[in-house]
């Protein structure tokens, strides 16, 4: 009986947690995502941030050249995190989840062509 009680408690609790997550946010549907985007120079920074903003739904984007991490504040009611990855990859930059098309990548400015550099590192 105790066992059933605990399982029930767990269920209710997790449900409630979900609920509170949603209700806690209220009208604010913004979400922060942080992931790795390959790139090497200041020019890439502009490109990456512009790429993720293109199409709307993004409030803030900041790519750190040293760590290659991109921090994006976006509207979860409009976009999924995967959409952010796809936007950046469409501009030629690989992300940790989506690989850019070779032909688009080849058109990147020389300093942004990170794949060869990645190979050298290994």
């Amino acid at each position: 009986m105790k066992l059933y009680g605990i399982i029930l408690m767990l269920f209710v609790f997790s449900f409630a947690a979900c609920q509170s997550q949603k209700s806690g946010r209220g009208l604010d549907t913004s979400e922060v995502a942080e992931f790795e985007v390959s790139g090497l120079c200041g020019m890439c920074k502009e490109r990456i941030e512009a790429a993720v903003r293109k199409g709307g739904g993004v409030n803030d984007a900041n790519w750190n050249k040293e760590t290659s991490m991109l921090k994006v504040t976006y509207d979860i009611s409009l976009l999924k995190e995967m959409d952010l990855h796809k936007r950046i990859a469409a501009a030629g930059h690989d992300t940790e989840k989506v690989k850019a098309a070779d032909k688009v990548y080849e058109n990147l400015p020389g300093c942004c062509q990170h794949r060869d550099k990645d190979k050298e590192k290994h």
Partner: protein
Amino acid sequence: MRLYIYFTGLLIIGLQLFIQTASAQERIEGEVSELKRRTQEQIPLEGATVIWLGTTQGTITNEDGYFSLEKDPNTNTLIVSYVGFTPDTITVGKQSYILIALASDEEIDGIVVESKSDLQEEVQQAELIGLRGLRKAACCNLAESFETNASVDAGNVDAITGTRQIRMLGLDGIYAQLMTESLSTMRGLNIRTGLHFIPGTWLKSVAINKGAGSVINGYESITGQINTELVKPEFGEKLFLNLYANTGGRFEFNAHATRRLSDKWSTALLLHASDVSFRNDMNNDGFLSMPLYTQVNAMNRWRYDGENVEAQFGARVLYEDKFSGSIDFNPSDERTADNPYGFGMENFRAEGFAKLGIMSKTNPSRSLGNLLSIQHQEQNAFWGLRNYEGIENYLMIQSIFQTDIFNEKYNLRASASYTFNQVLQRYTDAETDAIFTQDRTESVPAVMTELVMNPIEPFTAVAGIRYDQHNLFGGFFTPRLHLRYDIAEKTTLRASGGRGFRVANIIPENTGYFANSRRFMVLSEELRPEIAWNYGASLTHSFTLGDNRKGLLTVDFYRTDFENQIVIDLENPHELAFYNLDGRSFANSFQISAEYEVLRGLELNTAYKYYQIETTYRDGQKQLPFVPQHRVFFNAEYNTKNDNWGFDLTAQWMGRQRIPDTSTKPESFQLPTASPSFMLFSGQITRRWDKLEVYVGGENLLNYIQARPILDASNPFSEDFDASMIWGPVMGRVVYAGLRFTIE
């Protein structure tokens, strides 16, 4: 106890998560799109094939270009392909979602020819035959590549010379501009033979533009432009081999190899050899149904890809020796009226080209292209006792500057060129001692400009004008205009108009009309250049029915009006006369065609064409002979789901054709005033494996042969002999087989 249960619960959830991620890792997802060169836009490609290298594991993208594929433990390389596009190999990295962009075959030559991949976007009415389309009909060279296409008519094949004509908008192919990678190569002495000199397997694609062409490429195009793209050094297969044989005794061998020498340099070597040595006489008239010949053809080309520089250069050499005529004819015999009648033609051709493209670093829409083309050809021919010798030298240099002006809605091309063309020709007739010489040296500097305007979304206009300062014919302007308007999302109206100018070489353009006893006459003191205006409009509507099966409806009408034309007059059965047009000459062409994928994998393409072509001869205005007024074209193509098998069937119905008057000949050599209508069928079956393709097919499957193609065949040196009255096939059913072997 409580803690224990709690822990177990967590473990189960964790395990579930683990299983989920593990199974997710076993799949690769992605999107395939088309990359537009100018705009860099990526548009989803539906129906692209994605296959793991060296396996049969693959899938096809959906309407969003999306695919999902189970991972293969043996390989991490994907091959992505789509008809009319250069296939790509992609290495799967750490990511499980991959974007893939394909470029159309044309894009590589972006300097001059813009991408033709999305034909709906073209301002001109355009059509592209990709690799798949070219391989539907295996045989054998460019002249024969149009048999499965509705826009270009495969015309009659001369009985004696074996020369295959093509027709555009009802008019002879000489009025279309025939190009190799945007350079005019099938021109001058090569205007007929050139189509035979491009082996089919060398082709990557053939683009067909109907109506007035771009002024940038020259003043010659009147009815349209046909541009061929050959195997590219940077994209071609490592090694490609092709063997072909048919029941007519024709053997062909083609090979090409490409190498990437570094990340900047690449090269390609293309080879061809063909031979016909069997003597065929399918209608027992004592004459060969098909000429005997040997051709060797080789090309080497190079490419350099720099940061903002792209350079290409190459050279090609070919030799062909061909003869035909009486079945007993021996080319080493002395040519007299006592020996069997013979025809022979020998061609030697060498050509070189170079292209240098410089792209702006800061502005991707800005580029400078420089082109150089050098050509030399020697052509010797004989028909019985008639002889012809021709030599041609040609040089063309051109610079094309391209840029967006104001904004990306206006694109300007400005260009200057210089053309030098020397043609020396001599015709002699040993019987009548007639001599005709035509020596000409043209030297033509020119300037031209073309503006592409896209001021509002659904409307695009291309306006071009060029000025040529011709040393022989003075200065003249060539204006051309193309308009495109999207009436609705899937309905497009196009219109075009423009002027064309060309200098005719009457003998190499009419080799088929010299195999007879007609008296050769040039009635004008001086044959003037041919000048014509062409204008027309087309309406295309694309639609989707059923489960995303696509269709396209096209209606077009074009009219060509000649200001001057070299009239070819066969109206008197004893004369072959050439003279400047004195009166009206025009061609009306109407075509309605429909393409539709009836079932998954089964595509039908059907067209009806109506031509009204009239010229003023010495005895009045008449319909052009040997051209059917009505034509129906039908093509069906079926590919199995796994693409292992391909089936192709083409049917053509040709209406009645006017035959020039023969009423003054003896009754037994008279012909009716019109040919009967007839049908031709051809088909091919292809089996595709990974590296190998094997095909079997047949041409003229119903074995339809023109009755009596040669008049008075038993007395070829008599005054009634005529082998130029050809309206139908001379060669009967031919079955062929071949294989293609590819190492990527």
